[in-house]
């Protein structure tokens, strides 16, 4: 125990000695957390629409007016033909095309039914989903409106069919504030990069400069040495995370609905797993360059696949199974659940257990793989 205390003193001195790194470790996440949620806003409101109005009737004008005044769409232009509209899509000037057929108004009255053609650029899937969703609901509203307005003038006999309507409500985030969703995820991403990378770099640096040999010849046990390496970064991780929560509260007004203790228990569980990964990477790399390539690889995969910015539910089964072994995917989910919905310990046992198992596996692996004979 006493050995551990001495080791900890050494580690803390070593880390704190390098003022530049410490400053960066604290400032970089804080600044990024303040700025990046502004960039990560998917409450789509600027979908560009190209309109091909072959009808030029009051009905078609009214529909276009309704679409442009909805606030979701901005008019990229009227074009004379579908082909011209498509070229606007090709140049990324329009996201979708609405084509109103010739004699739309006349035939709507005559034949009682008319089609509208919508073509959506589906390369950006989320935008396509949302754009299509908004547009069809506007058209549905429009349909309802003209049905009422033309009720008396329409030449056909009106027989009101029964209508099923929807009353939808959005829980936990009634104003659909995207920041609530993205800030916890960005915070986790920042802590992830810090936690696993710094541990790995720190150990490999000792390898490179040869100071690890000096420790190897002492009677310090493997696990004590590794614990001594982990605790400082655990503390640092908790500090950064706490700062992040404060930033979320001050700049984005996010106050966790759930219990703070639940959040911190999960954080420690998570850091245990991620520091284990850092240790393991360190045992496999001889140079800082290698450690960096490896951690870049993992962090990038974690960032892209853990559900921070992309949906895990949309992935194929095999990929979802792989994602289960990523500690960040569990922690991001837990954070969102506790911060937004106020989930308690009982709700998140699966995630906690999964992170703990991953942590035990990684740490054991690292201790076994760390040889004192370098």
């Amino acid at each position, binding site marked *: 125990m006493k050995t551990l205390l001495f080791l900890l003193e050494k580690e803390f001195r070593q880390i704190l000695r390098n003022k*530049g*790194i410490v400053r*960066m*470790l604290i400032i970089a996440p804080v600044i*990024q957390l303040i*700025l*990046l949620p*502004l960039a*990560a*806003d*998917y409450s789509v409101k600027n979908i560009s629409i190209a309109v091909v109005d072959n009808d030029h009737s009051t009905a078609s004008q009214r529909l276009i007016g309704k679409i442009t005044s909805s606030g979701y769409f901005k008019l990229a232009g009227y074009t004379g033909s579908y082909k011209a509209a498509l070229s606007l899509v090709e140049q*990324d000037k329009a996201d979708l095309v609405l084509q109103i057929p010739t004699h739309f108004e006349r035939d709507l009255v005559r034949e*009682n*039914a*008319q089609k*509208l053609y919508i073509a*959506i650029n*589906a*390369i950006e*899937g*989320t*935008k*396509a*989903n949302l754009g*299509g969703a908004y547009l*069809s*609901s506007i058209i549905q509203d429009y349909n309802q409106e003209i*049905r009422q307005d033309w009720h008396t003038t*329409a030449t056909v*006999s009106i*027989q009101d*069919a*029964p*209508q*099923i*309507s*929807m009353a939808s*409500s959005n*829980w*936990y*985030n*009634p104003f659909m504030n995207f920041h609530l969703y993205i800030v916890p995820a960005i915070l986790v991403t920042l802590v992830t*990069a810090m936690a696993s*990378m710094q541990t790995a*770099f720190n150990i490999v*640096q000792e390898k490179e400069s040869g100071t690890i040999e000096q420790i190897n010849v002492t009677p310090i046990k493997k696990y004590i040495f590794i614990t001594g390496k982990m605790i400082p970064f655990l503390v640092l991780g908790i500090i950064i995370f706490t700062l992040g929560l404060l930033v979320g509260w001050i700049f984005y007004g996010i106050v966790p609905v759930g219990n703070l203790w639940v959040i911190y228990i999960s954080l420690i569980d998570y850091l245990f797993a991620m520091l284990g990964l850092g240790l393991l990477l360190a045992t496999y790399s001889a140079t800082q360059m290698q450690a*960096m390539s*490896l951690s870049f*690889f993992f962090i*990038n*995969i974690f960032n*892209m696949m853990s559900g921070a910015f*992309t949906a895990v539910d*949309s*992935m194929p089964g095999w*990929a979802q199974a792989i994602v289960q072994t990523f500690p960040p995917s569990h922690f991001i*989910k837990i954070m*969102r*659940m506790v911060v937004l919905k106020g*989930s308690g310990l009982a709700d998140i046992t699966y995630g906690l257990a999964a992170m703990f198992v991953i942590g035990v596996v990684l740490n054991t692996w690292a201790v076994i793989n760390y040889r004192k004979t370098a």
Partner: protein
Amino acid sequence: MLFGLPIAQIVLFGFALSNEVKNSRIAVTDYSKDPVTTQLIDKISSSSYFNIQRNLTSATQIDAAFKKGDIRMAVIFPPNFSTDLTHTGKATIQVIADASDPNLATTITNYITRIVGDFNTTTALSAGQPLQILPEVQMLYNPELRGAPNFVPGVMALVLMLVCTMMTSVAIVKEKELGTMEILLVSPFKPIYIIISKLTPNLLISIVNLFVILILSALFLDLGVKGSIVLLVFDSMLFILTSLSIGLLLSINAKTQQSAMMASLMGMMLPTMLLTGFLFPIENMPWPMQVLANLVPSRWYFIIVKRVMLKGMGFGAVWKETLILAGMCFVLFAVSLRKFKIRLQ
């Protein structure tokens, strides 16, 4: 490792990432249990969008299921549903979405609205409901909403840029740390030769990576280069050179490998990821972020790859982006050449 890791990422993301929302777990509560509700529930469960998880009966149960993350949405049919529908001509379904994920909530609420709308239309058509407008939706370029067409160019831009920056910055700082830089500096080499010889291996590695990525995406992800390959490679080289120059600039200011890595990984990774535009559309961002995004080279490269590779457009469509990349490359390289210190303190 320099080759394997970037390639593994592209393939992994290309196959795994998708934007299609399907099999969302929902709960259905039917207080009415009449023919109409049964028919509607059948329609909902037969669509590929939803996966009916279970029946919940009270608001507390729904809340608990949301908190556990078991369901994304709850659909509630009030009592006397079909009686109301036939007598008053109106009935309302209550839909509660878990909006902690706002976009998913919007999308699935719309799916269910569409299913109910279709149901209304069919009953209305048989009843002779007037003035039906039937939107017909077509998804261009990517009908299955696969993630690959968006993510492959995005990840290509992201990975190439970060790998180039990191490798260069660390390689130069390492020589500083080990003291071998001094030997190079006292030699009669001009600084520009030292810089060029440092950049060339990374440039070659990145070009090989680029080709492997292009071949793999054509073979496995069905994303061949539709436009001119020469144009794509030319622009890629320009982009790689720009990224290498950023690495150069970082290395000049960093004293240790660790601080160079910190700057390139901690400092650049997340901003590059978010500001390239493949995760979140740039035109949605507030203007200061848009200005910031314009300074990120991968933002321009992403546009070029999408246009040349996916849409098959020519130089006429990307000359502006190419010019911007060239300008960035020139400025960065010139600045780092000027700041490259030939004396060590």
